[in-house]
Structure formats: C-alpha cells, structure tokens
C-alpha cells in the first residue's frame, strides 16, 4: 500500500492543544512522524525583557494553564539566584504546599484528559471532581482559580489563610482515599489496559539522551528527580521518596507512565500533609502579608554580568529559567530570559516513540507523555 502523510491537528482531540502532528502512514501503521509547533507562540521571552522582575511572575504563570504554580515558582527560584535573595524557611514550606498541590491538580488534569483519550469517560469526570478540591485550596492561597501569581521574590504573596491547614488536611485525606477509586476503575478496565499496555515503549537512557525527564523517566525504572539531585526548597526535611515504576524489559509503556503519575499524586499529597505538620511557626498561624517571616528582602535590580538559573522539577519534567541581568532601566529588567520547557523537548521524542504502532495508538502514546502546549510554544 502507498505511504501517505496525514495531519493530526491543529484541531484534533489527541493534541491537547494547538499543534500539528504530521504522520506518515502505511495502511494503519505509523512509519514516520513530524511535529509542527508554534501555533500559540506568544513571545514570552521577548515580552519579559521589557518587564521588571516582579512583573514577570504572571507571565510565568501563564506558561502552562494546567500547572501555573510550578512555572511561577520555577521563575522565582531563578530570579532569586540572579538577585541573591534569602528566603525565610516558612515561606519555603508554603511554596512547597502550593507547588505540590499544583502537581496533584496537574496530574489530575492529565489523567482526566487521558481517560477519554483511551475510551474511559468516567475517569475524566472523577478526576475533575477531585481537581476541584485542589483548585479550591489553591484559590484560597493565591486568590484566583488558574493563574495565582502566588510566589514573590524572597517569599510568598500571603500566608496560609486561617483554617487552611484544617481544610487542606481533610481534603487530602479524602483525596488519598479516592485515588484508590481511579486505580479501581482504570486497572480493572479491560479497555484501558488493552489500549495502554504494550504500546509506546521508551527506555530510560534513551529518554535522558533525548532530553526527556521527570515522571516519564521515573516510569522507565530510575528514580531520578531534580528535587533530590539538585536540591532546593525544604524537601530534605520531609519524609518522602520519589515514585518509581518497574517497567518491562522493553522499557516503560503507557501504562507505566499512568502508574507513576498516580503514585506521584499520592506522594505529593503525603508530602503536603507532612509539611503542614513540620511548618515552622505552625500551619495554623497567620502572618500578615509582607511579614518578614514569609517575605524576605529583595533588590529590584541586577547588574550586567549577573546571571541566574535554576533547575526545577515541574509536573512534566525538568523546567528551567535562565536569566541574564542588566537590561533596560539600569538593570531593572532582565537582559535575556530563556525558558526551558520540558514538553518542547518531549514532544519530538514522543512523536518518534509512536513509530511502528497503529494510528489508533497515537492518542494513547501522545497523551501518556502529558503534552501541554502553553509551555511548549511560550
């Protein structure tokens, strides 16, 4: 049969956003792929060159609509490296709570989008139900539902609201019970197993060479995690282990990537519960905004020659900001902002990963890598 190219996207349920996957098919079999990105390129890196350091946080938020807090924190840690800022310990705990809540919400959004990809609509409804609890908690922290603009250079915008710890504990305990429900409906669903097991094999070393990181690598059987390898924040004081999955000899399949994310949600929830207990000053105390206990002092300018970068464990892999100081306004703006998006590097790899499988496997394989186009196109 003759080979031909077909375009999946930019409007296709598989893409989870605006991009095109050109697929070369021979009958039903995929023989070559070529991703085409850039449909929602907004030029964030250029815009940031004309903003001062505090104004960039909302732009970082909007890089990923499913995982805003992790992105603004990734920026904040790089900015603190550039501006040489000390952060109070309590603020680091609050940030950890915000980031891990966001990680749970992001993975729930992923699972919620992945279930209908492989023919299980119930899973989506259930995941979005639990995501709502996380969104409520994040809304209490940041004040809005999606783009929180929560961290500040040197600390956080505001302390945990009064009663937050109580509600957070209750909701996370409920959530930990309900994770078992997802496992029950997915692990015992024949359709889900048939469509995810044995497709989209990926090996750990190959993924690292291709620049893929985070949960996708942990699904392939190595517990590499930026949070222990390049430590930041207060993760050393918490009792946790990065989740890791046992793949097959051929590598991790879509099912392993689903398992590792479910495990990671559980790990993050436990981490938050642990962090609330260990928080200096107690999780029930409430400091006013701007109190030195939650917000350190930070300079507003960075001279030319100063640089800062920070590797951050995003929900989708290793994200990073590289900032060069000394832009306009005598260093009030960065001279150059460069953003490392995990999905920008992962999408080309995931596209190569599906060669040899059937067209019907494309949504299952692509979705299992958790693509997010907001951060990809920047």
């Amino acid at each position, binding site marked *: 049969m003759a080979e031909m190219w077909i375009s999946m996207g930019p409007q296709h349920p598989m893409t989870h956003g605006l991009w095109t996957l050109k697929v070369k098919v021979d009958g039903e079999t995929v023989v070559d792929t070529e991703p085409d990105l850039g449909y929602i390129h907004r030029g964030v890196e*250029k815009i940031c060159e004309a903003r001062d350091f505090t104004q960039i946080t909302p732009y970082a938020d909007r890089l990923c609509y499913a995982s805003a807090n992790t992105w603004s924190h990734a920026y904040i840690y790089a900015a603190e490296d550039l501006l040489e800022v000390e952060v109070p310990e309590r603020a680091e705990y609050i940030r950890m709570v915000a980031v891990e809540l966001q990680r749970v919400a992001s993975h729930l959004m992923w699972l919620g989008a992945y279930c209908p990809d492989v023919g299980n609509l119930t899973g989506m409804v259930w995941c979005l139900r639990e995501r709502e609890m996380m969104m409520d908690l994040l809304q209490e922290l940041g004040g809005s539902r999606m783009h929180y603009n929560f961290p500040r250079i040197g600390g956080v915008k505001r302390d945990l609201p009064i009663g937050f710890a109580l509600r957070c504990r209750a909701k996370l305990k409920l959530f930990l019970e309900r994770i078992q429900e997802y496992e029950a409906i997915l692990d015992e669903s024949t359709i889900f197993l048939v469509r995810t097991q044995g497709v989209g094999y990926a090996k750990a070393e190959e993924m*690292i060479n291709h620049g893929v990181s985070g949960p996708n690598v942990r699904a392939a*059987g190595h517990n*590499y995690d930026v949070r222990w390898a390049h430590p930041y924040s207060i993760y050393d004081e918490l009792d946790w282990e990065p989740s890791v999955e046992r793949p*097959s000899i051929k590598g991790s399949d879509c099912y392993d990537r689903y398992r590792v994310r479910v495990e990671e949600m559980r790990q993050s929830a436990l981490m938050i519960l642990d962090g609330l207990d260990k928080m200096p000053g107690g999780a029930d105390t409430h400091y006013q905004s701007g109190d030195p206990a939650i917000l350190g002092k930070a300079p507003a300018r960075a001279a030319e020659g100063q640089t800062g970068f920070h590797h951050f464990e995003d929900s989708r892999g290793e994200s*990073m900001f590289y900032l060069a100081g000394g832009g306009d306004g005598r260093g009030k703006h960065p001279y*150059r902002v460069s953003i490392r998006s995990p999905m920008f590097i992962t999408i*080309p790899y995931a596209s190569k990963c599906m060669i040899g499988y059937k067209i019907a496997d494309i949504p299952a394989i692509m979705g299992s890598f958790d693509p997010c186009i907001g951060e990809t196109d920047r």
Partner: protein
Amino acid sequence: MANEISAKQVLSAAKEIVADVADFGDAVNAEVRHHTGGRRKNAYVYIEVVASEWRELALWLKKTKKVDYCSMITGIHWPENADATWQVVAHLMRTGVTNPTVVNKRVHEIKVDIASLSGNDVPMEFEITMTIPDTREPSVPSVADIWVGADWNEKETWDLVGIDFEGHIGMRRVLLPHDSPTGYHPLQKQHKLRYHDFNEMYDDAQGFGRKPEDSGRVK
C-alpha cells in the same frame, strides 16, 4: 535518612571535574561556582570555552564525565559588544540515569542510594558559555548528535536568536511561522520592545495608542 544529595558531595565532584578540564589548556576555562539564591548554595561547574573547541569539549564531557543530558541552549545578542556580540550558553546536566537492571529476566527498578554517590555518579549542573565576535552569520558547532535533546534547543536558538549550528541536520523554524522572512530573528536586540509603565496602562487600557519603538521602520 539522607533523601537528597549533600552540598559536600556536589562540591567535591565539581572540583574533580574542574581539575580535569585543565588538560584542555587555554581554550577552556573552568571554575566551580555556587548558586547565590535560596537555602542552598549548591556548587555547579562553570566553563568558558572557545566556540571552535565546543564540540571537542562536549565529546569529552560525554565520554569521561558521563554528562548525559542537555537541558537548554540559549543564544544571547549583545550588539554593543563588538568582541562578543553573540553568546551561546549551554546548560548540561549529569543525571546518572541508567536502564533498570535485569536479573533472571526480572526487571528491578533503580532506587539510588543517594548518600553513597561519589565521583562520576554525583548529579551535576554545568553552565557552558562561548562567545562569537560581531558577524552577520554567527554559528557554533552543533552537539545534536551527542545529545539528541540539543536538537530542538538548537532549532529554537536559530529560530529566535539567529545563531546557526554547524553540522545540525534539518534546521528549520519551530516556533515562528514557516514563512517568516529570512533573517528575521525576534530575540535580536534591534527589534525593540518598549516598556509600558502603569500610568500608561491605565490611560490606554486597550493599548490602541501603543506602538513598538521600531514601528514603521523596515525590519
């Protein structure tokens, strides 16, 4: 229980690398630097390299220092600096990720014993920078065949900044439209973006009156 790498492990591993880089002579300058923000001032390896030696250094890092991961490649345009108009910064990492071990046909996932890591097994951050003097066609050697992860990073750097990579196969626009004009790379500094202060934003919230500084000029 140690559940993350200690500053001491990182520092000694970084010093080891810097000492070994000295074999390259004048073309490569390496030093141990420390992060300056946050709670930990972790050490990382900072290397300045002559652009023509970059590929050789990359091969050496990959082979003897087990650097297995290319995080990001950034291009910066410094139009006022004639000696170093173009700068390329590569952020590499040593992750130490290996495929899980197989014993008696059973796969065993790897859980690293973090406290025992030493030498080439310690995860490490690298910042490698190189500069190119003023030229219309800046380019540095490509490392996309050493770390495949560099492939799309290099495409992006060419697309947005206009720095080419010699030996890169299949260079094309990735973020900008495919039919963007030749030579148009928006992160070059001749394309100006004006700062709008907050007063201006309130007076003209919709932004009808705003224009970029270079509007009307041929780009």
